[in-house]
């Protein structure tokens, strides 16, 4: 095994050296090209191009790769989660969101310093993550989940800003995809000293981190303050990430892959791990970038390096998944479910109250609205034809809400993890990928085409989830991680598409945002039928849903075939999610939030839990749909976005209380 790391590093180094050598032997003598690094010949185009664009780009990739690798390693080490990485903790999306806000509402901030704005955004996001997980002493799982929620939350807000200002934000999309084009030495001069200092500080913490690696309690007994260690190391990781993100944009995957590869090639001690992953990170990013620069013609810009690495990263993550051991996750699972175990007794009236609130909501929201002449009440205006537009949307919102709530309840009970949801396990992202493929391959821009594409995408995602999790008996954590990988792939593809500035991405954004807009009266009948069939099946499975949360051993003792029931329930969840996603888009949080609220209301038995969360989900969706149409009238804010914004707030509040 000693031999393997060395050969891997040799191959990597050799390919980078080869590409550098090739580039330097083009157009001029090798020596001339090499000296252009220090002393360019100001009369030669080639020399100037090398000096001002190629060399700085090479150094930027080396520095950024190393910084991201160290940041990833620190996060993975502290959180003891091999899938933690700078992008999963929300730093990048926080930076991106703050840049968007500044561009639109405070351009003077950008003139002051773009990096500073991004840096502040990244740091504030991390601050929120810390605040959310503070009460659980920055427990690894809670930190990762907070990061995930913030990622989704900023994602929803950013999409709202984007569909309203796409032209103005076009430049930011390029930044978001991580293009590494350089036109001088400013970035290198800015990054190099900062990154070097931070990496040196990180090396000081190798020893305490080694103790932490042994065992948490061991580290504690040896006098290492866990919380302090976590804050400092995560802080370092965030600073490293923020500097990189602020100057060159979002570069996925390196922070995840470099430490993972290091582990895979058999480096286990911490100090060599630091050195090797730094090396691998730097060379991996450089190699990718050099290859992309060599792509013929204009393809090199169509494929920004940051997004390209992220797209490469997703398959790697999926490949790594079966190799992961989950021992560190086992105890956190119980921690998460703890709060919802207490169930106070509630009378049956609650359900009647909830049901009537759906009906009253439906009545109010379909009759009260802003129109051409301000607020109007349909019974006074007698403008009945308007209902033709309103009713299908509201009905679709109710149905989608109900389906997502059912799916969420099933998956949360199935996995015993209150953070699981159909959005999180990747089915929604699969649907979105299918739609992107259909729109941009030029196959079809029609609605049917998009639906078929979405369906195929979703089925592929479900196939992948089943394929990867069948062997492990559909272990909840692995299912979640599969989802994280699929979502990462979707994010990468989406940012490549948006960076290209193709006006078709308008349509894509509108759809991805999730809206009941396209629902027609004709579509309502099949939608209603499907909803009733799927939800009834859900109710038929209520015994499984009561037993499975008790744990695998007890379930088996009670005569349930755990693997098979999990698989069947997963298929049901997929069916529900696909149908709902095609109506309200890939992201809404409803599947996550409705089961939660139902639990909080005190319904813990499967059947009641299902009913209550369906009612809660429908009401929330109904409200989101109505609010989306009123709040920025005449702009029609997509239902899914409104639901995510409301839902995200609730989830953050829930995390604080956890």
């Amino acid at each position, binding site marked *: 095994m000693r031999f393997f790391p060395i050969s891997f590093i040799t191959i990597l180094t050799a390919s980078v050296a080869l590409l550098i050598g090739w580039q330097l032997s083009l157009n001029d003598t090798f020596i001339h090209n090499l000296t252009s690094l220090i002393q360019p010949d100001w009369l030669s185009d080639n020399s100037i191009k090398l000096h001002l*664009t190629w060399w700085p780009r090479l150094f930027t990739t080396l520095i950024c790769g190393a910084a991201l690798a160290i940041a990833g390693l620190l996060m993975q080490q502290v959180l003891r989660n091999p899938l933690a990485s700078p992008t999963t903790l929300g730093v990048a999306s926080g930076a991106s969101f703050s840049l968007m806000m500044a*561009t639109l509402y405070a351009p003077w901030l950008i003139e002051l310093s773009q990096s500073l704005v991004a840096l502040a955004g990244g740091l504030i996001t991390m601050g929120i993550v810390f605040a959310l997980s503070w009460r659980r002493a920055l427990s690894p799982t809670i930190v990762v989940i907070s990061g995930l929620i913030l990622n989704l939350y900023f994602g929803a807000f950013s999409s709202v800003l984007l569909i309203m200002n796409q032209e103005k934000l076009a430049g930011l999309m390029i930044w978001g995809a991580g293009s590494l084009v350089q036109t001088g030495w400013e970035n290198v001069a800015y990054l190099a000293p900062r990154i070097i200092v931070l990496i040196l500080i990180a090396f000081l913490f190798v020893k305490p981190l080694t103790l932490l690696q042994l065992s948490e309690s061991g580290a504690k007994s040896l006098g290492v303050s866990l919380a302090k260690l976590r804050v400092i190391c995560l802080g370092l990781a965030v600073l490293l990430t923020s500097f990189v993100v602020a100057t060159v944009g979002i570069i996925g995957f390196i922070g995840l892959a470099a430490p993972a590869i290091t582990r895979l090639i058999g480096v286990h001690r911490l100090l060599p791990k630091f050195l090797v992953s730094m090396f691998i990170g730097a060379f991996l990013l450089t190699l990718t970038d050099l290859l992309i620069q060599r792509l013929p013609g204009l393809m090199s810009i169509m494929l920004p390096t940051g997004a390209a690495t992220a797209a490469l990263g997703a398959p790697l993550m999926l490949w790594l998944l079966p190799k992961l051991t989950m021992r560190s996750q086992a105890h956190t699972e119980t921690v998460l479910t703890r709060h919802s175990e207490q169930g106070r007794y509630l009378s049956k009236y609650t359900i009647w109250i909830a049901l009537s609130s759906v009906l009253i909501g439906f009545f109010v929201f379909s009759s009260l609205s802003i129109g051409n002449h301000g607020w109007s009440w349909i019974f006074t205006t007698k403008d009945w034809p308007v209902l033709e537009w309103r009713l299908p949307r509201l009905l679709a919102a109710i149905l989608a809400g109900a389906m997502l709530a059912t799916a969420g309840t099933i998956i949360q009970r199935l996995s015993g993890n209150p953070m699981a949801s159909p959005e999180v396990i990747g089915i929604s992202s699969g649907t979105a990928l299918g739609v992107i493929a259909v729109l941009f391959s030029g196959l079809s821009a029609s609605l049917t085409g998009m639906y078929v594409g979405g369906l195929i995408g979703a089925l592929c995602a479900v196939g992948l989830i089943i394929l990867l999790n069948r062997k492990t008996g559909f272990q909840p954590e692995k299912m979640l991680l599969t989802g994280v990988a699929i979502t990462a792939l979707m994010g990468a593809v989406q940012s490549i598409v948006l960076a290209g*500035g193709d006006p078709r991405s308008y349509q894509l954004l509108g*759809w991805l945002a999730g809206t009941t*807009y396209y629902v027609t009266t004709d579509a309502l009948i099949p939608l209603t039928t499907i909803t009733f069939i799927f939800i009834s099946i859900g109710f038929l499975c209520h015994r499984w849903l009561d037993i499975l949360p008790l744990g695998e051993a007890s379930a088996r003792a009670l005569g349930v075939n755990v693997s098979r029931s999990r698989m069947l329930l997963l298929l049901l969840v997929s069916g529900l999610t696909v149908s709902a996603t095609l109506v309200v888009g890939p992201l809404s949080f409803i599947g996550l939030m409705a089961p939660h609220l139902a639990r909080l209301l005190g319904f813990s038995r499967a059947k009641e839990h299902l009913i209550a969360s369906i009612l809660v989900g429908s009401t929330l969706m109904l409200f989101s749909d109505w609010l989306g149409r009123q709040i920025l009238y005449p702009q029609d804010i997509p239902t899914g976005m409104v639901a995510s914004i409301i839902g995200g707030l609730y989830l953050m509040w829930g995390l604080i209380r956890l």
Partner: protein
Amino acid sequence: MKKDFITMKHSMILMVFFAFFASNILQAEQTTPLRVMSIDWTQTETLIALGVKPIAMAQQSGYDAWVKEPAIPTTTADVGLRTQPNLERLSELKPNKIFISPMFSSLIPKLSHIAPVTNITLYKQDNISWNGLKTFTRRLGDETNTQAEAEALISSSEKKLADLAGQIAKDTPPLLMVQFMDSRHVRVFGANSMYKVAANKVGLESAWKEETNAWGFSLVGIDKLMNTQGQIIIIKPLPVGVEQNLQQDLFWQYLVKKSGQPALTVAPTWSFGAIPSTVRFAELLTNTLSNKEKQ
């Protein structure tokens, strides 16, 4: 020469007058007046130039920021986002004809419940030329019974462009027309772009010969501009912070120096426009170039 010009002008006025007269007769024949709207800014721009007052349009704030002219009539209502125009509002406005471009074709099933939808393509590969723009304008003219206005718009624009061509110095090098996305990336416009049509019409060439997309641009890092020689034209708006970055950017300075001409900036026009934007860009371009000559 001067006299010719006056008679030209007179005959133009006469033509426009005639056109209005003709269209009045046509409209009188119709039982209901046309109530049209378009989701697409390029179509909105052309409709207004044809003298049609659309009853509605989408995302007016965006139009005002990016297309600017011709100005939206005060009677025109805003129906919100282009990706999802507000259907309730639109149906209350009772249009009887809706125009869209293929980009928004997913809206057809919904919009066709409100009024017949006409899908008109302008931006696609190999369609953007002066002839393509004329066909597009005539098509809209046919659809809104403003054939005469369409002809008048085309001929007055052609005359205007010919005038402008006369003001351009003969030795002007080909134009490298770019729009900055951020300090290091530009959309560079070439084949199939409205900007190139405008430049060609006033007797200039586009320096960018590489492939472009259906909207006539390639998105490139500015390092890719090194091998293209030409008068640099920066089309505004510049994103925030870009101006000051460019002043410090050695590579950009080098590019400008190498082109042998100072980089010129042109006020914003809609990059994906039709005849009105083309003429406006040609005017702004000519002004900028002739101001440079004077200095």
